[in-house]
């Protein structure tokens, strides 16, 4: 079960989440009973549809007086959604162009905003996203020491190549971030000396860099390559930063697999995450199948949502 510092989350909301929202939903959120907003995991906004908030993976409608019910409450119009999106982008769509193409942006504090709308194509590729009328605000929460058990599990004399697997929203990135922090700082209890960790943070989600500075604690021996494509990033870090551990989020494609294969065989430990429920499911994904069949990963950890995000479901050792 994951717990987090409520005061800290409250500050997070006040300084990072509320400023990007308009009064119409800011006020009801602030009025929630006992600052109930600290438990929110997602805020979902859709044009002409009721605002929804998700607490412990369950959806509620937000009412204008701050009550959360099963009946639809506040509805946002198209222009209100456009306004919110403009503010989220710091009034600068162009600086988010690459991110918008991938369907998300990262705001200050490392919160990820998922986007959907109408895609503008160019030769079968996504050129940009317009009419963005579906917005999902995912609140990033820092949970220190939540990965302590995992780190103990993957460390004996040496750190093993590790893959963390879970469906979306089960705390994968949170666990990865805390692993990075622990490995980078070192853990005295188990005689783990801090390692040089390099992070390829393609979606600015792990270190949550804002203008290049990590907004979250990723440890003292960690270098972050922010918003860099994984494949290029891994080879760049191998060449330039002499890391002992490379950490990446959400691998899947064959190209990702090739890059990780290179790193594994270059004497660097790799820690990665992937979407999936169990071994059968991830073996259906070509990139991960190659990696597992070639014994690139020594430990595979499955997470679930059973007892809150970050529940360790199963740990698989591959020799």
């Amino acid at each position: 079960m994951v717990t987090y510092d409520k005061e800290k989350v409250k500050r997070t909301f006040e300084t990072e989440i509320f400023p990007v929202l308009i009064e119409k939903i800011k006020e009801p959120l602030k009025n929630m009973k006992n600052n109930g907003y600290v438990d929110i995991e997602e805020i979902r906004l859709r044009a002409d549809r009721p605002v929804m908030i998700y607490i412990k993976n369950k959806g509620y409608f937000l009412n204008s007086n701050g009550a959360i019910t099963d009946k639809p409450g506040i509805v946002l119009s198209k222009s209100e959604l456009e306004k919110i999106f403009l503010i989220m982008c710091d009034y600068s769509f162009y600086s988010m162009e690459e991110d918008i193409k991938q369907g998300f942006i990262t705001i200050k504090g490392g919160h990820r905003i998922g986007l959907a709308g109408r895609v503008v194509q160019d030769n079968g590729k996504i050129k940009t996203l317009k009419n963005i009328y579906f917005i999902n605000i995912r609140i990033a929460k820092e949970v220190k020491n939540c990965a302590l058990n995992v780190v103990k599990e993957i460390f004996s004399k040496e750190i093993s190549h590790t893959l963390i697997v879970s469906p979306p929203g089960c705390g994968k990135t949170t666990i990865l971030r805390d692993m990075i922090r622990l490995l980078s700082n070192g853990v005295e209890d188990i005689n783990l000396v801090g390692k040089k960790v390099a992070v390829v943070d393609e979606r600015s989600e792990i270190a949550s860099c804002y203008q290049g500075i990590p907004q979250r604690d990723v440890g003292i021996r960690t270098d972050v390559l922010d918003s860099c494509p994984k494949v290029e990033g891994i080879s760049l870090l191998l060449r330039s930063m002499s890391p002992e551990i490379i950490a990446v989020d959400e691998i899947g494609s064959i190209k990702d697999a090739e890059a990780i294969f290179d790193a594994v065989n270059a004497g660097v430990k790799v820690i990665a995450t992937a979407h999936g429920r169990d071994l059968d499911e991830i073996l259906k994904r070509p990139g991960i199948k190659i990696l597992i069949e070639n014994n690139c990963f020594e430990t595979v950890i499955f997470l679930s949502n059973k007892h809150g995000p970050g529940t360790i479901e199963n740990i698989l050792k591959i020799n």
Partner: protein
Amino acid sequence: MLKILGSFLIILSTSGMGFLYAFGYKERVRQLRELQYSINALSSEILYSSNPLWIAFLNVANKCSSPFKELFLNMSESLKQKSIETISESFEIALKQQRDNIYLENEDLELLRTFINGLSSNDCEGHKKNFNITQKKLEGLEKIAEENRNKNERLYKYLGVLSGLLIVILLV
């Protein structure tokens, strides 16, 4: 004695007015040039560094001189605070504060407004076009301002002094 002092004051004030008018012509040219420089700096901030507007404005403000320094600083601050709804709104607020120091004509301001509006464009192509067209138009305006200055700067200075003299002569 009193007469001499009075006439002196009259000439001083009318010349002052003349010089102030003339200064306006000179300052408009300077500010149009400064504006071209800052918009150039802004274009590299946006197109090359891809900085969000509040950082772009802040960096440009550190490079250019008054009154645009204050104008851009003000806009940067309001965008950073997310206290406004559109970029144009932040411009209008900043402009209001600096209005007395800005010696631009209405057509210059209109161009600036269109330019600021264009900053909300979605992609780099749109921005390139916006920068190009604004720079071209600014060059045109600068030429006109320069001509006006050549024509009028001296005229107003002389006019000020001479009208002062005329009043004095008539009165005496």
